[in-house]
């Protein structure tokens, strides 16, 4: 139940068919020819550098605070350079916040949600993009409409459902409500409408392949780049999701964001410990960002509303 959704193109289906690749390529040529993108001046670099520092500094400082001891953190001026206690503090945070368990839980939750979201979104996205059926447009409008529904509004009945099912404090309670995502469906629809030629689907039909076989052998290979992006973005959202896991899980079986609240709950706040926990919880995603940064950035941009 992530409140933060993916970006999507909200243009109407009719318009996308006009904007096929050739038109786009032409536009790009035109743009380059005109030299519209001005070169950045020194001021641009300075401003962007400031923004980059502001973006990264809190994370850097998390690491600094996590590597010192408590008395050093609460001195003025505050420390700016890493201290010697990083691994001690990480180990303590690992124990006190049940981080091991939380990491495993978060990996399971985010992994299952991302896999299922990607699979079902590709399946439905393919149907909406390339198959003809009655009520297609209405159903697609319904999908888009559901993006506007904030999950918090249904949280009370959902909690009651989960306790009736006996899923309270258990991972299925977090996983099941988020198995699909409207934004994911729309994202895949937009991608496949452009990337998958109609002729390929028709060729498959002529060869006598049934729909599932076409999906498996023709659509999946084409969709792979978009699926990878959708997987990463969904994984980030599921890993970071807070409200619903906080409501339905408890400290004996938390996800990472839920476990982190445990660290700050005490009366005596051990700041280095808290920061070590925050660092631990963020590290897996940071590694993912460093490795796949380009893909995630281009994925978010590819899904954005154009024009």
């Amino acid at each position, binding site marked *: 139940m992530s409140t933060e959704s993916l970006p999507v193109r*909200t243009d109407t289906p009719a318009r996308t068919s006009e904007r096929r690749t050739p038109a786009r390529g032409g536009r790009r040529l035109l*743009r380059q020819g005109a030299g519209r993108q001005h070169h950045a001046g020194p001021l641009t670099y300075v*401003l962007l550098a400031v*923004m980059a520092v502001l973006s990264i500094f809190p994370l850097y400082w998390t690491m600094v605070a996590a590597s010192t001891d408590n008395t050093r953190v609460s001195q003025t001026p*505050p420390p700016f350079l890493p201290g010697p206690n990083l691994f001690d503090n990480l180990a303590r945070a690992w124990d006190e916040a049940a981080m091991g368990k939380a990491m495993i839980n978060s990996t399971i939750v985010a992994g299952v949600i991302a896999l299922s979201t990607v699979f079902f979104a590709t399946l439905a996205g393919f149907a909406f993009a390339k198959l003809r059926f009655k009520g297609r447009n209405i159903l697609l409008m319904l999908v888009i409409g559901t993006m506007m529904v904030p999950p918090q509004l249904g*949280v009370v009945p*959902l909690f009651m459902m989960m306790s009736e099912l006996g899923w309270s404090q258990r991972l299925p309670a977090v996983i*099941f409500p988020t198995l699909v995502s409207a934004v994911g469906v729309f994202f895949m629809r937009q991608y496949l409408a452009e990337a998958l030629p109609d002729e390929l689907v028709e060729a498959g039909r002529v060869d006598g392949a049934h729909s599932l076989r076409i999906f498996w052998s023709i659509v999946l290979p084409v969709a792979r780049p978009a699926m990878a992006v959708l997987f990463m973005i969904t994984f980030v959202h599921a890993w970071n999701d807070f409200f619903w896991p906080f409501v339905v899980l408890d400290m004996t079986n938390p996800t990472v964001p839920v476990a982190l609240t445990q660290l700050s709950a005490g009366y005596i706040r051990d700041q280095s410990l808290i920061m070590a926990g925050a660092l631990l919880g963020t590290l897996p995603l*940071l590694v993912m960002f460093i490795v796949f940064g380009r893909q995630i950035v281009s994925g978010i941009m590819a899904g954005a509303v154009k*024009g």
Partner: protein
Amino acid sequence: MATSTTSARLGEGRGGPPAKRGGDGTGRRRGALLHRLDVKGAPYAFVAPFFVVFAAFSFYPLVYTSWISLHRVELATLDVMEWVAFDNYVELWNDSRFWNALGNTITIGVISTVPQLLMALGLAHLLNYRMRGSLFFRVASLVPYATSVGAAALVFTMLFERDFGMINWALGAVGLDPVDWEADKWPAQIAISTIVIWRWTGYNALLYLAAMQAIPADRYEAAAIDGASRWKQFTHVTVPGIRSTIVFTIVLSTIGATQLFGEPLIFGQGPNGVAGGADNQYQTLGLLLYEEGWKNYQMGRSATVAWAMFLLLVLVFVVQRLIRRLRVTRTS
């Protein structure tokens, strides 16, 4: 995305020649029937998982919320529902905590959304220049997006600490008095908004950047020929050119702001922070919803708060629509 490689890759997927059909007539007829069934039925089967899961875990709870809000339900005995008609709504209306939370949700929403989107617009404009290291700057501005509410709020809570926090230290360094960020209403709301702004500015900037890159060059040329300055080009070509993206981010941010929960909760020292400060000075509707349901054990009243959030959202969009219509009629 790599559209060009896909058609090349397709060849491998499709596999050898089509399977041989049965030679006799009945086999072919059965095959044709199956084929028709497949073509007609498969699309529904493909979209069904989405609608089934959505109906069960999103739509049904949403509708059921209104039914629960007409009952008295306690957390310990969830199966006992006592009909109370509109009592919950009347009590909520007369509850000063509700109006306080509503006000806080609106003020925090405004001071986090407006600067965030303006800064995203500026950042996107900068990123749109041709430059070295553009990928680095894009990834860097997206790094906060990878941070969870939990981690971000914990770090900022420390930076905003009264006695040894870095922000008060920096204020002192330039000769300003320290601010009690947690205890005072506006400083606390500003601090919470800072967390939201930090996490989402880069993400919105990338959405704007993508839209900016789709603006046709000739519009800029025409503006330049008319003698428009860089600033005029920005306000008269770029901003109108990405209007639908701006509207989209406003909608998303509004929905997010209405539900604000993790940031104020953790800023108020973890799970005990549902009160939103000693004077509820930063308690949002999200926190009130949780407090009523899971601290005061009144699920019916909690559902009523959820309904109030829904109405707030509807109201915001109706007002936005009205403003837009007024503006259109005035200009035409």
